[in-house]
């Protein structure tokens, strides 16, 4: 791995900044705890300190900041606290926990693996619906002027509505007609992921130049031959670029869809963490979601590389 050095450098810088940021972020709670433990804090009294500059407080009490990286329910938990939470809510919970898969035979509902699995299911189903729909719409848009004029503006408008506002309505409407569980979340996922696929695919299907189209005309090729032999293969690189954006958007959609339902999933886990001030839990769920996104995008990239190789791309 030739590029490991630069990546590690960036990670080290981010982690370093994070540790530094923990000091002013957590200074109020740290000083309150220190004062309770009998230390002399400048100035005295939590209420006097409330509106003071956090950075100023950190400087005037620089010998009392040892707890900045280990407070419970910190405003900003430190990286190692998040890592510990990640460990305890994945491996530790499943292997050693009473409800874990080792001791109970099923995934623990306190583990990120359980919640991530729920989110992943909705993400994948939503992505398949969304990208399938996106491809179909793009084919229609490229082949029919009417669809180009009528569908495209609505596709664009659909993306201007904040999904956080729309998600609960989708859930409620679908619930009222008896659809619940994975499908409503998948619908929200699909809603977010179809758009990049439509845009990329339209561009890709239109990418053959005039000469390529003229050539097929000299063969008197039909429209469907032009589609299968020229337009579709030409669109493949565009499609994969869109799919990578689409699958990441799908994951966001699934998480947003889990917020109002609260029946498991990383979204539910994040919201739960914020209800109870468990910031470590929120951060751990965030990182877990990011890892899932990275794996999904990597997977699409892998399929892309395989496909492009089959299509004769320069190695």
């Amino acid at each position: 791995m030739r590029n490991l050095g630069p990546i590690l450098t960036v990670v080290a810088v981010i982690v370093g900044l994070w540790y530094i940021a923990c000091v002013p972020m957590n200074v109020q709670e740290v000083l309150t705890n220190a004062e309770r433990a009998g230390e002399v804090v400048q100035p005295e009294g939590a209420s006097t300190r409330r509106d003071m500059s956090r950075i100023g407080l950190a400087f005037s009490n620089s010998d009392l900041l040892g707890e900045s990286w280990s407070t419970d329910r910190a405003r900003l938990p430190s990286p190692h606290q998040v890592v510990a939470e990640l460990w305890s809510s994945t491996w530790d919970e499943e292997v050693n926990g009473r409800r874990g898969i080792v001791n109970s035979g099923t995934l623990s509902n306190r583990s990120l693996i359980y919640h991530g699995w729920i989110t992943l299911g909705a993400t994948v189903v939503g992505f398949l619906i969304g990208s399938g729909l996106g491809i179909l719409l793009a084919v229609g848009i490229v082949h029919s002027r009417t669809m180009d004029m009528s569908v495209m503006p609505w596709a664009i408008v659909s993306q201007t509505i904040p999904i956080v506002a729309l998600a609960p309505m989708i859930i409620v409407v679908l619930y009222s007609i008896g659809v619940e569980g994975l499908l409503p979340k998948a619908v929200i996922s699909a809603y977010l992921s179809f758009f990049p696929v439509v845009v990329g695919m339209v561009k890709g299907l239109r990418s053959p130049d005039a000469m390529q189209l003229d050539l097929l005309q000299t063969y008197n090729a039909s429209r469907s031959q032009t589609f299968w032999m020229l337009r579709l293969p030409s669109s493949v690189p565009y499609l994969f670029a869109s799919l990578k954006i689409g699958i990441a958007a799908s994951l966001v959609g699934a998480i947003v869809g889990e917020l109002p339902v609260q029946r498991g999933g990383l979204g539910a886990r994040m919201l739960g963490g914020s209800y109870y001030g468990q910031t470590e839990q929120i951060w751990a769920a965030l990182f877990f979601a990011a890892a899932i996104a990275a794996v999904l995008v990597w997977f699409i990239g892998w399929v892309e590389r395989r496909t492009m190789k089959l299509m004769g791309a320069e190695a």
Partner: protein
Amino acid sequence: MTDHIISAKSLDLTFTTNDGPVHALRDVNLDIDKGEFVSFIGPSGCGKTTFLRCIAGLEQPTGGALTVNGMTPDEARRARAYGYVFQAAGLYPWRTIAGNIRLPLEIMGFSRAEQSERVQKTLDLVELSGFEKKFPWQLSGGMQQRASIARALAFDADILLMDEPFGALDEIVRDRLNEELLKLWNRTNKTIGFVTHSIPEAVYLSTKIVVMSPRPGRITDIIDSTLPRERPLEIRDSKEFIEIAHRVRDGLRAGHVDD
């Protein structure tokens, strides 16, 4: 009229643009017989490519009559009467060389066995045997253009239309491809329409040279070549060759005086 493979009678083509009409072709009269090698030469905008595209049914003339194999160009296109070679090879990067040559055969519905047979035959014809499994990026520009000629020959149309096929290649490659094209023409006895910018290329290849000039696009001279059918590259140093080239140059100059 139907005796000629391609026949144009007072052909006009006017494009309507925002800046007013553009006379791409005006009063073009030309007959091409079977087995002729006809070059169209002239400066940019003289309508030589437009005329070739009219023959191919890719542009619609606005006046006059044009027949290809006794049919309208559009009927001829539907009957797959010609192969067309563009300036860029335009091979599909996702198909192998053999796959690219097979493209028109697949579209035209040849049987699998016949496809393979024809691909092999045309690959031999353009001397690309052994490269069928390569992808276009693995070939040089000259070889790619040869593959695109093979693609145009694969379905064995009687007419081959070539729009500056060697324009993007360097002089050395171009000379060799010119020589090969002549050999190919000798072997297959196709009728070839060839658009070019190069006087030596036109004189070397053609049995008939059509000199054109712009604004409006029209024919200023038609020269029947007196060169023999067998043409080694050295023929370009012969007195005859130089005389024909001179006449082409005069024709091009005359076209410009009219401006």
